[in-house]
């Protein structure tokens, strides 16, 4: 199986490479259109800031390329947010794959610390990414912006308010949390994605 990771100006891609290596896959990290289009599975991970990463994607014509992909795509963290319509982070229009806008967490109490960082649970996980999952399994999050619950939400997490832990539309999948840092639970999600 040919697995590609979209190369762009976001950090922390090496932990996704490591996670894929642990399940026996050697991914290609590339921004070459032909290599991306010919991959069986594509991951779009990373940590970064929405406005800068979106500008980079546009400049390198990766924005239209990602929208047109037909194979299964998994966005992770900033990848998920960039796949939405618009982000409050830098007030920027994003890829518009998911019909929802990204918002900033607004603490309601002193205990509501931002970023939301650490292990939290998945509620009502549904669809192929969560095959074999039970209610309330823990995954690892680090983020200050969130995707509200919408028609394309496939799992919900509660922090300050309920938000989309994951999304799915057609061939596009996305998680706000980091499966590559979520221990055995995360590894099951990566395997489920590779099995699609």
């Amino acid at each position, binding site marked *: 199986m040919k697995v590609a990771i979209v190369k762009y100006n976001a*950090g*922390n891609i*090496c*932990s996704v490479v*490591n*996670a894929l*290596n*642990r399940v026996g896959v050697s991914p290609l990290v590339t921004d070459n259109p032909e290599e991306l289009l010919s991959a069986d599975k594509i991951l779009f991970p990373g*940590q970064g800031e929405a406005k800068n990463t979106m500008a980079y994607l546009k400049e390198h014509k990766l924005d239209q390329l990602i929208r047109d992909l037909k194979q299964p795509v998994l966005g992770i963290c900033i990848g998920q947010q960039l796949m939405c319509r618009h982000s409050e982070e830098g007030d920027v229009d994003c890829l518009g794959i998911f019909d929802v806008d990204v918002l900033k967490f607004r*603490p309601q109490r*002193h205990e509501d*610390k*931002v*970023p*939301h*960082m*650490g*292990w*939290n*649970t998945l*509620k009502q996980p549904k669809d192929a990414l969560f095959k074999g999952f039970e209610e*309330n399994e*823990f995954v*690892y999050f*680090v983020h200050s912006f969130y995707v509200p619950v919408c028609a394309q939400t496939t799992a919900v997490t*509660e*922090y300050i308010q309920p938000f989309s832990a994951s999304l799915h539309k057609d061939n596009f999948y996305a998680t706000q949390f980091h499966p*590559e*840092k*979520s*221990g*055995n639970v*995360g*590894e099951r999600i990566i395997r489920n994605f590779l099995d699609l």
Partner: protein
Amino acid sequence: MALAKRIIPCLDIKDGQTVKGTNFINLRQAGDPVELGKAYSEQGADELVYLDITASHEGRKTFTSMVQQVAAQISIPFTVGGGINELADVDRLLNAGADKISINSAALRRPELIDEIARHFGSQVCVVAIDAKQTEEGWFCYLNGGRVKTERKLLEWAREVNDRGAGEILFTSMDHDGVKTGFANEALAQLADSLSIPVIASGGAGNMEHFKDAFTLGKSDAALAASVFHFGEIKIPDLKQYLRNEGIEVRL
């Protein structure tokens, strides 16, 4: 359900090997930081901290390659600290695969380092460790692994660290460290009340109740310990079950 309180074993590393002895059975090499980290991860540790206590240049290189091995083999977040003095050190360790870095003396000597790390790599990677000791005039911060007293007061410094953009504070009470009579819960609660970032409690864990107290009385977001885990005095699955039974949200 809410964000889980985190349990964090800390491993001291010298020349690529764990320093403190361990009681882990079924480990091919008890001194191997990667094997030990894996064992903790499988037991349910939420994060790991690797502290480089080597002083030599050669030791630093060994530590960096150990970080690469940890990143390749362990699927939970980990923080690395020890000997980080400038952005280039942070860059090297993050490139090796660390999720967060921890700075201590370097931040006290040049507080702008916190701003720089937050700006270049994001607040979430920047943990600032604070070693402090209580005197009649209050809590004071210490440098160089607790060997040099500064005039910085704990709360003032912690607020400054917070405002400069650190992602977390790792607070060690030097009075409690190694004594196994519980964490410095009063100081921890003061920190939690005055900061907007998470606080990791460190120093003083002797039994399971001490962890509960750090989360309830001390209002900590995470608790770190070394010897009670390394010597098998507290097993992480037992600790987490106990905390869950006590009504504290933990990842099981």
